[in-house]
C-alpha cells in the first residue's frame, strides 16, 4: 500500500499562499482589485504587486486542469472552434476552459482580465495566445513587453535599454491607469529585495542535489518548489519564508542521508542520477514520475525548473536598478537562452551534480523547447560522453501520453545505464 505523502511545513505554507491568491481572485468584485493575466516565463510579478493587482497565469490553469483530468475535454472544445490539433495544448486547454465558463482550479469562476500583460519570453506562442484572448476579452487592456532574445548569448545594454523604455513609457503608464495606483519605485525596490532573497534560496535548494543521495528530485518535486515564484509570490516575504523553510527541511534530509520524497514516501535507493530537459507531462504526472522512482532514478537538475528564471548562474534581481532588473530577469529565462547557452547550462548541471545520464522529454506541441533538442542532445552526448535518453509526450493533451511506450523506452535506457555503471565500476582501481 502506498505510503501517504508526508506533509512538510513548507507544503502547508505553499498551500496557504495559493489558496489565498485564489480566494482573493474570487472577491475582486468586492475588493475592486484589478486582475492581470500574464505568463510564467518573464513574469513581472513584482510590478503587478507594486500596483496591487492580482495575477492569473493561464499556463498554470492549464496544467492544473490536466492534473485534474479536465484538459482533454477543454482541448476538444477548442478544436471544435477551429484550433488545430498540432499547436500548443496549453493554449487550447485555456481557450477550452474559457469557452466552458472559465472555472479555475478551485472550482470557482475566474474573474475576467482587466489587463492582458504580454511580457512573453522565449516563445512566440505566448503572443498568439494573447492575440486570441484579446478577441475574447475586448475590454481588457493589452500590454506588450517585447523581450529580445539572447541570440548572441548576451544581454546587451541596448537590449536592456529597449526593455526599460517599454516599461517606462508603455507598461507602467497603462498599469497606473487601469489600477488607479501611482507607480512607486520605492515600493518596487522593496519587493525586489525579497525577489533577490528568494533567488538566493532557490539556487541553494537546487544545489542540494550535489549530495548523494540527492535529498530532492529537481524535476518532479522541483515543479512544486518553483510554484511560488511562478504564480506571483516572488517578491513577497511569504515566498522567502517558504524557501527558507524548504531549505531547512531539505538540509535536514541531507544530514540524515535521506533521498527524495515521492508520492509513495521516501525513495529508498538512488541508483541513477539524471538531468532532464523539457517540461513534464501533466496529464499523467504521477504515473510518469513513478516510472522514474520505481527504477531508482532521481532527477538532479532539469531545465524546466528554470523557465520562470535561471538562478544557478549567479544572476539575481538588483533592487537598486529596479527596471533594469525586471528586464534582465525576462531575458534570462531558460527558453530565452540560445541553444549554445542551454547546452552550457545543462552540461554544467550534468558535471556539477555528477549525473549518470541525460534524458529529453520532448513535448509534441512546444516548439520553444522541442526545436533543437535533438541537436542539443547529440552535442551533450559527444562532449560529456553521458548516455542520453529520449522520450516523447505532451503537456496537457492526454492523447499523447503513451504509458507503455515511455515505460519501455525508459526501461531500455535504465538497462543501458546500469551496464555503463557496471563497466565503470569494473574499470575503477581497487582500493
Amino acid at each position, binding site marked *: 500500500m502506498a505510503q501517504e505523502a508526508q506533509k512538510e511545513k513548507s507544503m502547508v505554507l505553499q498551500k496557504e499562499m495559493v489558496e489565498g491568491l485564489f480566494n482573493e481572485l474570487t472577491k475582486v468584485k468586492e475588493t475592486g482589485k484589478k486582475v492581470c493575466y500574464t505568463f510564467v516565463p518573464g513574469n513581472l510579478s513584482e510590478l503587478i504587486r507594486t500596483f496591487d493587482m492580482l495575477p492569473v497565469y493561464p499556463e498554470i490553469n492549464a496544467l492544473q486542469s490536466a492534473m485534474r483530468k479536465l484538459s482533454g475535454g477543454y482541448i476538444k472544445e477548442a478544436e471544435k472552434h477551429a*484550433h488545430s490539433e498540432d499547436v500548443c495544448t496549453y493554449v487550447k486547454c485555456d481557450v477550452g476552459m474559457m469557452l466552458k465558463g472559465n472555472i479555475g482550479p478551485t472550482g470557482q469562476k475566474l474573474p475576467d482580465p482587466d489587463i492582458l500583460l504580454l511580457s512573453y519570453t522565449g*516563445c512566440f*506562442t505566448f503572443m498568439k495566445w494573447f*492575440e486570441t484572448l484579446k478577441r475574447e476579452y475586448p475590454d481588457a487592456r493589452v500590454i506588450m513587453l517585447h523581450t529580445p*532574445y539572447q541570440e548572441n548569448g548576451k544581454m546587451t545594454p541596448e537590449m536592456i535599454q*529597449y526593455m526599460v523604455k517599454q516599461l517606462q513609457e508603455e507598461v507602467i503608464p497603462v498599469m497606473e491607469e487601469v489600477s488607479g495606483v501611482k507607480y512607486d519605485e520605492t515600493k518596487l525596490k522593496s519587493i525586489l529585495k525579497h525577489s533577490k532573497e528568494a533567488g538566493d534560496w532557490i539556487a541553494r535548494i537546487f544545489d542540494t542535489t550535489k549530495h548523494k543521495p540527492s535529498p530532492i528530485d529537481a524535476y518532479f518535486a522541483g515543479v512544486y518548489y518553483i510554484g511560488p515564484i511562478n504564480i506571483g509570490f516572488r517578491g513577497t516575504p511569504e515566498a522567502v519564508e517558504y524557501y527558507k523553510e524548504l531549505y531547512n527541511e531539505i538540509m535536514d534530509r541531507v544530514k540524515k542521508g535521506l533521498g527524495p520524497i515521492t508520492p509513495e514516501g521516501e525513495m529508498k535507493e538512488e541508483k541513477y542520477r539524471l538531468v532532464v530537459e523539457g517540461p513534464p507531462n501533466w496529464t499523467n504526472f504521477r504515473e510518469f514520475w513513478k516510472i522514474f522512482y520505481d527504477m531508482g532514478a532521481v532527477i538532479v537538475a532539469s531545465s524546466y525548473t528554470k523557465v520562470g528564471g535561471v538562478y544557478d548562474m549567479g544572476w539575481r534581481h538588483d533592487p537598486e536598478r529596479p527596471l533594469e532588473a525586471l528586464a534582465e530577469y525576462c531575458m534570462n529565462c531558460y527558453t530565452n537562452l540560445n*541553444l549554445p547557452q542551454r547546452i552550457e547550462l545543462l552540461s554544467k548541471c550534468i558535471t556539477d551534480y555528477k549525473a549518470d545520464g541525460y534524458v529529453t522529454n520532448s513535448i509534441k506541441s512546444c516548439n520553444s523547447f522541442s*526545436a533543437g533538442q535533438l*541537436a542539443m542532445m547529440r552535442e551533450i552526448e559527444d562532449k560529456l560522453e553521458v548516455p542520453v535518453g529520449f522520450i516523447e509526450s505532451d503537456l496537457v493533451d492526454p492523447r499523447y501520453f503513451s504509458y507503455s511506450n515511455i515505460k519501455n523506452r525508459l526501461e531500455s535506457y535504465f538497462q543501458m545505464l546500469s551496464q555503463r555503471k557496471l563497466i565503470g565500476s569494473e574499470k575503477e582501481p581497487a582500493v
Partner: protein
Amino acid sequence: MKNPAEIIAQCRIDSFDLSYTKAKAWKSAGKNRVLIGYMPIYFPREIAHAAGALPVAIFGGGDRKQIIKGDAFYQSYICHIPRSIIELALDNHFEGFDGFIFPSICDVIRNLSGIFRQQKIGSFIKYFDFPQNFSPSIGGTFYQQEMQHVIDYITAITGIEVTAERLNHSIALYNKNRQLIEGIYKVRQDYPWRLTMEELYHVIRAGTVMPVEDHNEILEEIYTYVQNTAGTPQDKVKVVISGAFCEQPAVGLIKAIEEAGCYVVDDDYQLGSRMITGDIDTTSDRPLEALANAFLKQSQYSSSIYDVHDPKEFRLAKIVKDRGADGVIFASASFCDPSLLDAPIFQNAFNKMGIRYIAFQFSENINQYKVIKEQVGAFSDSIKLWEPEPDTLAVK
C-alpha cells in the same frame, strides 16, 4: 531582352536553383563581395545591398531535396522547412555564403539559428529580432540597432562605408522592385488569366536569389507584358491565399489551386518581397530610421507581428475586398504554429463577416494533392453556385 515566355522559363530555373549559381557567380565577379542567406519571412534587403552584400532568400529544399540528415535534427511534429534547410547546409549548398539571418518569426527559426551556430555554418549568424513595440522612439530605435549589427557584420568583410546616400540608393531600387510587383498584382486582380500564379510565383522568387537591379529589369518586362497581353479568361472564382508565408507549398500545389478553379489574386507566399506596402522615404539623412518607420507603419499583416493595435482579420478582409476576391484559402504548413494559431482568429471573424474560406495544410515536400485539389474545386463550385446577396460580403 528575351520574350516573356523565355524570361519566365529562366525564372523557373533560377528560383529553384538550390546551388544558388547566380548568387555565387555574382560573388565571384568582384572582390570582397558578401553573400548572406536570410530565412523567411522578411529581411530589409536594402541594408545588405548598401553594405555590398547580396541577400539571398532561403526557402528550404521544397520537394526538390531529399532529406537524409535533416530528420535527425527535428522531431516528426516540427514543420518541414528547418530540416530541409539543415540538409542544404550540411550538403554544402551554402558554400560561399558568408552569413545567415534568422528573422524573428517563430521558435523553430529562432532555434535553427542556434543549430547554425552549433554547426558553425557561415562566418556570422544573426538572429534578427524585429521589434514588437511599434513606437518609433522605442521599437524603432531597437530595430535600427538590429540593422546596424547586420551592417557591421557585412562591412567588416566588404570594407564599404554605408553612407546615407548609398542606403537611399538601395532603398530606391527596392522601392522600384515593390512598385513593379504591386503593379503586376494590380493588373492581375482584374485579369488573372494573363499571368498564372505559378508564373508569377517564379518571377518573384527568382528575385530573391539575384541582384535587385537584374530583377527589376525582369519585372519591367513582365509588367509591360501583363498590361498589354489579352489572354483568355476562364470561369474561375478569385481567391486570396493566406498562411503560407514561410515554408512554401510545392509548385505543383500552387498550380493545382488555379487549375481547380481559383484564380489567386493575392497571397502571402514569399511575403518578404511585398512586406512593406508603399514606398520607403529615399530622401532622409537617416535612412535606417526611414527603414524602421516603414517596418513599423507600412508592414503587411503577418502572423509574426503582434497585431492587437491593427487586427489582422480586418486587414485580410480589406485585401479580399480591394482585390475583388470571392473568398480565402488558408494554406498552412503542417505544424506551423504562427499560421495555425492565427487560423481560429481569421475563421471566427470571417464567419461573422460572411467571407467564405477553406483551410488545408501542406508540407513543402509533398507533391500529391489530389484531396486538396478536390477541396479547392468544391470551394470554387460552391462560390459559383451560391452567389451570396451582395451585402453579406460587407467588410467592416
